[in-house]
């Protein structure tokens, strides 16, 4: 779950990382009073996509009236397709320097990794490798001050800057671990009047750790209703633009199924990894999500491991009986309890295939000859 900037900054404050004086507003109400004491301010739309500055999502103001006006304008607008529901109004600081600092996870090393650059304020992906310092962290000892000193040294920070940088990093790592973060990023980490201050905040927490989120962690949900339902079912679901709705179990086989649809000239409507071990109920609910997208064909590619073919077959029967499925179903069924599954489908006259080639070829053929209709 990505957090909005203002939420990330609230966490920064909790961990004693300095942020500009600011407040979040969901309407123009109160902005004039707040900015009366601040002088020049910056009004930042609270959206989750990057590059909002270039997209017009950040405005500057010199008077309280201008600030309110800028905020109201942003709150009526969209940034990269996302409606702006909140703005963060902050003091505008004089900036001496901008650095980059983040903690995330390196899957290859299986460790957290500190990423830093002396060139902040720009897209880190755009920086050449030699401008980026990466130092892995052993979770058994965490970020000790020496790791901060070594990072700072590689960034050519000295004296008091070295001490301040180390302090920010130690705290940022503590936040990273305490809140199950996938990423904590400060870009830019600015030096203003000689002090380090987090001018932006990007915090992504791990969805899998939701069951133990600290009570003060705000909830952000920017997903569509369908995506929410999928998430509640523990399903990975991404909407695409084609006409064959796809369900498979396992990210790899789902991806390969899309590849094969492509190969046969078809177009997938979605990516749906129903996961391993989904029972009848969960599979039925997943199937309902697919039906609601009104595809031309539904293709299920089930290679049963922890998933049992009979339970999947029962789900199809259940949904067919409950909703009536007018869209053609193409089912590839193999693996655990395959025979039982095939028998259940046969009883309902649903055709199943043993190889993915046959199933995909059939689905693409059906989609080519048919308009989308839904339930």
């Amino acid at each position, binding site marked *: 779950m990505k957090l909005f900037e203002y939420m990330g900054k609230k966490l920064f404050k909790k961990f004693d990382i300095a942020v500009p004086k600011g407040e979040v507003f969901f309407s123009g109400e109160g902005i004039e009073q707040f900015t009366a004491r601040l002088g020049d301010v910056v009004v930042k739309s609270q959206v989750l996509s990057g590059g909002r500055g270039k997209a017009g999502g950040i405005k500057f103001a010199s008077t309280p009236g201008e600030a309110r006006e800028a905020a109201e304008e942003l709150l009526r607008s969209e940034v990269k397709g996302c409606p702006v529901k909140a703005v963060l109004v902050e003091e505008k600081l004089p900036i001496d320097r901008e650095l980059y600092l983040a903690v995330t996870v390196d899957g290859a090393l299986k*460790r957290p990794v500190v990423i830093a650059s002396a060139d902040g304020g720009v897209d880190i992906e755009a920086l050449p490798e030699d401008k980026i310092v990466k130092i892995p962290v052993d979770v058994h000892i965490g970020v000790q001050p020496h790791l901060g000193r070594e990072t700072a040294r590689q960034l050519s920070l000295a004296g008091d800057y070295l001490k301040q940088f180390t302090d920010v990093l130690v705290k940022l790592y503590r936040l990273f671990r305490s809140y199950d973060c996938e990423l904590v990023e400060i870009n830019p980490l600015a030096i203003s009047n000689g002090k380090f201050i987090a001018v932006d905040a990007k915090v992504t927490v791990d969805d*899998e750790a939701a069951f133990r989120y600290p009570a003060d962690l705000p909830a952000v949900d920017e997903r569509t209703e369908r995506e929410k339902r999928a998430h509640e079912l523990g399903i990975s679901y991404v909407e695409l633009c084609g006409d064959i709705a796809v369900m498979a179990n396992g990210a*790899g086989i789902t*991806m*390969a199924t*899309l590849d094969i649809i492509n*190969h046969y000239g078809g177009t997938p409507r979605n990516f749906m990894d129903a996961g391993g071990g989904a029972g009848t109920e969960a599979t039925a609910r997943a199937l309902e999500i697919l039906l609601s997208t009104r595809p031309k064909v539904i293709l299920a590619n089930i290679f049963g*491991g922890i998933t049992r073919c009979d339970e999947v077959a029962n789900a199809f029967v259940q949904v067919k009986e409950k909703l009536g499925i007018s869209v053609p179903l193409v089912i590839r069924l193999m693996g655990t309890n395959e025979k039982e599954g095939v028998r259940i489908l046969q009883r309902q006259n649903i055709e199943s295939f043993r190889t*993915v080639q046959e199933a995909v070829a059939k689905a693409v053929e059906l989609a080519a000859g048919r308009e989308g209709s839904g339930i």
Partner: protein
Amino acid sequence: MAVIINENTRVLVQGITGRQGSFHTKQMLDYGTRVVAGVTPGRGGQRVHGVPVYDTVAEAVSNHDINASIMFIPAAGVKDAALEAMVAGIKTVVIITEHVPLHDELDIMAYAEKTSTTIIGPNTFGIISPGRSKMGIMPNGIYKPGPVGLVARSGTLSYEIAFNLTGAGLGQSTVIGLGGDRVVGMSFTAVLPMFEEDPDTKAVVLVGEIGGSAEEEAAKFIAGMTKPVVAFIAGSSAPPGKRMGHAGAIIERGRGTFESKIEALTSAGAKVASLPWEVPDLVKGVLSRGN
């Protein structure tokens, strides 16, 4: 021989009394796996399919000579259970569970490094040395013993390929699922040297997918291998920037793309299949050339 597990592996099942634990214990026993004990806290003294159940791993290892554990444990309890196995001295741990929190995975892997434990998973189908032993949830019927070492990031995609191999008369020495999460225990670069050393393995099939740089890392090792490698990479049709499920398929800096992986593997001398069912013919090709 085979790698990591064989007919001498004595297996513990953590979470043996649960629905999945019980079901797959039966499947493993049916396959011939030597499941010698199980653990479920509070259920000590019971038996599951004849296997004695203990309250703790420490109790199980004090009663049986155990050298590997497979766990069917809800995601929130995986870290505790994995650490319990390692503290008890078990050196091979298979974690089937998906949705394990990322930081728990970091903690598990750090302790595995400290204790020199081999972790397979999380979010994996497990490992099977056909005809000898299996620790996992893969269907029993799709494998047969033979010369192909198969290592995959994704479960069901590897079933597909194993099934095709078996259908083409090509059995497997060992099949390993690395697991689909961002942080998992074994990587291609940990498995490939084992296959290179294993006398039973004559060729290796690597099943990867877009995202991360594991396949590019693997390519570096493949370049120096004496045994032939055939690869298949899923995700040729993935739109860039979209995250596809738990595979962590985020396109990164030119690496991690379908094209960069194919390029790296091809340059390293691997044969790359465009579609899953092309794998057997490519394997036959490299095996006949090798002899």
